[in-house]
């Protein structure tokens, strides 16, 4: 039965061939073939996931030669289901959305090929298949983004995506050949076995092989998941068709998180790589979210939101919470896909009527009229800090009592704590008739979200990494010296407490943003509004390279 995975991958490719061959004859009905095959793929993907849940044994099927191996495992089957579900939604949406566009059949061919390549990527059982699928996704995305061959902006930004993806392909290729040279096989299973047996057997350039390979794979993941300095393509690729944006933001961009998970047996043996992954992810999460807040274009704001979310996903890998990253990418994929697909409709409706009810939320967010002097500020500050901390702590304690020993889990708790505190602070400042009711509702919803998140992520952990020793070692690989960690935790905790108290006190006194910081704040806002001048920097670099190449050509008379 596990061989069904082969059919799951083959179906989109077969559909692409049929759609392309018969699109002139079928006309608009070409889309029906594509959608039907995706329905079938989705159903088969559900069955294969069920099979993986009932029997999680890894199985491999060799298709062609020494490579072309398909791997049946929990991660691959789960990702297949996610890809087929998102792709199916995008297909169904495109049937009507793209009907007026030229190249209707070609669009569905490309969508099918993209779906097939993504699935091949997640079930690749050897390095060559993985590299090929990884590479194909970049190529197909370029042509999907540039579907409208009349639109120069679409192609310009598709080119940015292309070159960033190519930049990311090459470290993966280097990692693949290093692993092959070290172990004499392209098979992932064999390589992982050998690494587990003796992880520090080999060195490259005087570094441990696993550290070098881990760094190269992380670099490939950064490019694919739009991490800071490799992110510029993501918010600007909005000139492509909306369904492609949805597929890209909901599925393709998440590949970085998948790749790091796929190479978990490598990362578990590293000692320093995951710290860099954490730093890059953290910087991306913070800057992506800040940039999102400064956008006035809904699609660009969604683009930067994706960047922030990808940063958070990579950061989760950086703290050793690998399965949480997979849960995050699935949840993000579903909600971001929905947002993209409905963005056009929202913009259209908003042009006629903004439809925003003039309620408490409106007063707070749009009219910026926060309430003042509502409740005793000190009591509220203590509640704001205490309630989220207790809820998060208890929720995690319910699923795993030993979470306190995992440094990565503690780091993530801080994010939950700050988010919860922010939620309660917003409640405190909102104008409402019944404050107690609103406050209770906020706490209830927070408890539901935290419990849901904790239980689901725990289920993912058990499914993807059933070996709890391995999962604990992943956290340990991301850990640092206990003394320094405890010191950092204490400092951050005190900083958070002090700042929340100060914020509440300042709000009570009516100087939420102090005058002293205003010029500094404005300068920072200006920097944000220019997106840190990174695009200008790259443009200038490319122009200089172009000038140099032209000079060389003129000097050598173009021969």
């Amino acid at each position, binding site marked *: 039965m596990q061989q069904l995975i082969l059919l799951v991958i083959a179906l989109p490719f077969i559909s692409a061939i049929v759609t392309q061959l018969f699109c002139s004859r079928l006309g608009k009905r070409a889309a029906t073939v594509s959608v039907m095959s995706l329905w079938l793929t989705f159903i088969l993907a559900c069955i294969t996931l069920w099979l993986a849940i009932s029997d999680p044994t890894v199985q491999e099927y060799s298709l062609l030669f020494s490579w072309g191996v398909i791997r049946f495992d929990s991660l691959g089957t789960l990702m297949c289901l996610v890809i087929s579900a998102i792709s199916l939604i995008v297909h169904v949406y495109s049937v009507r959305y793209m009907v007026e566009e030229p190249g209707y059949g070609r669009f569905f061919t490309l969508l099918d090929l993209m779906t097939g390549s993504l699935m091949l990527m997640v079930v690749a059982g050897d390095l060559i298949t993985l590299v090929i699928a990884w590479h194909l996704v970049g190529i197909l995305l370029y042509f999907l983004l*540039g579907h409208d061959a009349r639109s120069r902006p679409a192609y310009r930004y598709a080119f940015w995506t292309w070159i960033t993806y190519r930049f990311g392909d090459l470290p993966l290729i280097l990692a693949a050949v290093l692993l092959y040279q070290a172990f004499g096989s392209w098979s992932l299973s064999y390589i992982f076995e050998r690494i587990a047996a003796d992880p520090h057997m080999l060195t490259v350039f005087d570094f441990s092989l696993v550290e070098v390979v881990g760094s190269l794979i992380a670099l490939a993941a950064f490019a694919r998941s739009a991490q800071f300095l490799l992110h510029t393509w993501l918010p600007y690729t909005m000139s492509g068709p909306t369904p492609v944006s949805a597929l890209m933001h909901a599925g393709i961009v998440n590949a970085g998180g998948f790749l790091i998970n796929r190479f978990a047996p490598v990362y578990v043996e590293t000692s320093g790589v995951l710290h860099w992954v954490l730093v890059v992810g953290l910087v991306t999460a913070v800057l992506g979210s800040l940039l999102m807040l400064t956008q006035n274009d809904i699609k660009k704001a969604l683009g930067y939101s994706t960047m922030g979310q990808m940063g958070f996903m990579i950061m989760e890998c950086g703290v050793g919470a690998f399965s949480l990253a997979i849960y995050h990418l699935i949840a993000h994929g579903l909600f971001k896909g929905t947002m993209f697909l409905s963005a056009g409709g929202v913009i259209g409706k908003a042009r006629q009527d903004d439809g925003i009810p003039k309620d408490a939320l409106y007063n707070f967010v749009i009219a910026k009229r926060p309430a003042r002097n509502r409740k005793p500020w000190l009591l509220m500050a203590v509640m704001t800090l205490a309630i989220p901390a207790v809820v998060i702590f208890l929720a995690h304690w319910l699923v795993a009592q030993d979470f306190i020993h995992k440094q990565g889990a503690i780091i993530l708790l801080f994010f939950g704590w700050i988010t919860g505190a922010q939620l309660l602070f917003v409640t405190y400042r909102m104008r409402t008739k019944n404050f107690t009711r609103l406050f209770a509702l906020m706490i209830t919803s927070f408890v539901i979200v935290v419990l849901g998140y904790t239980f689901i992520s725990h289920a993912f952990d058990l499914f993807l990494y059933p070996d709890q020793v391995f999962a604990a070692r992943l956290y340990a690989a991301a850990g640092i010296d206990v003394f320094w960690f405890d010191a950092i935790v204490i400092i951050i905790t005190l900083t958070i407490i002090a700042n929340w108290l100060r914020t509440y006190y300042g709000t009570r006194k009516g100087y939420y943003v102090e005058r002293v910081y205003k010029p500094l704040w404005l300068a920072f806002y200006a920097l944000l509004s220019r997106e840190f001048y990174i695009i200008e920097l790259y443009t200038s670099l490319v122009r200089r390279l172009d000038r140099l190449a032209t000079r060389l050509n003129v000097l050598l008379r173009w021969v």
Partner: protein
Amino acid sequence: MQSTSLLLAAFFLPLFPMSIVFNFVFQRASSAWIRVPVLLVWPLPGLWLLESDSSQIGDTLVLWALLTSILYSFRTVVVKELSVWTGFIATSAWSLLWTAVYLGARFDDLMMHAFAFSLPLALLAILVARLERQYESAYAGVVTGLAQEQPRMTGLFVVVMLAVIGSPLFPSFFSLLSNINNVVMVMPSIAFAIVLVWLLWSWSGIRLLHELVVGDPAVIQYEDISQSMAMLFILSFFLLVAGGLYMSEVML
């Protein structure tokens, strides 16, 4: 004698500045009937000359070959004349063959490496010659909006371009992968240089494609490539992919 054969090899597996001769000859040949044989045959004498004694090739020569490859791939970034671009990419690709010879590759494998690059370039030369016949010059930016005007030709152009710049399943992809694989542990710097060349090809190739394919079509419209010709090209793509798969089995 040895230095003479090396010098001759440097003409056929072009090393700068001898590469100027190949590019001069290639650009003067305006017909596809000349360009295609030139692209297919030019590197072979070089391989024959070097195959007899690969020990002649020292580190300096390999470094020179890599610099030539990087130089020509970098120069392609701003080239818009398709025939010039083809010549530059051929120079860049063939100079990479020096590393394969240096690592002691068998003659059969060397031939495969050479054809892996030459065959897609030969297909490109045929398409370029057709464009030159129609537009009098195949200059990206002057020829524009090809996708609107000649969709069949554009499709072929896209696939050929992907084959040239080393995209998966085409022989050039496996050739580059095999080169990197063979050299990464022995001389990692060479592997990084090949990776850089690969990136530059991708950059310039897609940039050129963008200029040529995107936009509104020209005022004077030309006939698209015939269906039978397109079928021949598609057949050759299948053969290229089959060749690529064979290469992957033999070399990886």
